[in-house]
């Protein structure tokens, strides 16, 4: 997995690329959570994510919960088809 963070004023757009599984979930977590912790509005672009499993979904849930605690925004802005499918499955459960 690779990532890029774009800064637009106080907003941070995080672009993740590749496959997000247990092996790299911590890297994704360590990229996103500190931005939210710092009070930034975080937009997550997942258009180039080819695979995501429950570990990746966990990062999204943690990010959303932290943003609620910090009274800031965490949004998914673009989602690839594989991620969309996994999210749809997860939504049945969340």
């Amino acid at each position: 997995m690779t990532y890029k963070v774009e800064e637009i004023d106080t907003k941070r757009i995080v672009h993740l690329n590749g496959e997000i599984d247990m092996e790299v979930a911590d890297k994704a977590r360590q990229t996103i959570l500190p931005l939210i912790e710092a009070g930034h509005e975080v937009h997550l672009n997942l258009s180039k994510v080819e695979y995501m499993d429950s570990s990746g979904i966990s990062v999204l849930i943690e990010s959303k919960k932290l943003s609620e605690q910090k009274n800031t925004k965490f949004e998914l802005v673009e989602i690839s088809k594989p991620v969309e499918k996994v999210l749809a499955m997860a939504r049945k459960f969340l």
Partner: protein
Amino acid sequence: MSELAHTNHTEKKDFLVRSSSLKDVRSFCREVFEKLHIDQNLKDELVLAIAEAAQNIVKHAYKDSPNTEDKMVVQISCKDNKLQIGFYDMGTPVDPGKVKHREIDNVKPGGLGTFFIQQIMDAVEFKDGKKPWINHLVLTKQL
């Protein structure tokens, strides 16, 4: 139903029980499903279920041995329209009664993997592991 309906096929491969092996597990599955002409949609779902099961071995059966040199085996068999995926490991014995996804009103990240497996597969069964194996998980899907 895919062309797989006419194909009887078995392949297995071992992997070090590490999170870094999960990518290889997925590649192996994709290669086998490619040979079996499983359509993309089902292939993606099956790869996810298998990867989640392999992840559970790393995460739970080897929770206390992150640097193990043990290997797990993934076996994919297709016979008479039935796909069977076997997982063998030598980790901590799994208590099947404790393998469940979390309650629906408990919005925490954990347990989703097991939920995905149950959503995708028709049956999830723990069998007695025959030596040298401790755990033997079988996932089944009718095609």
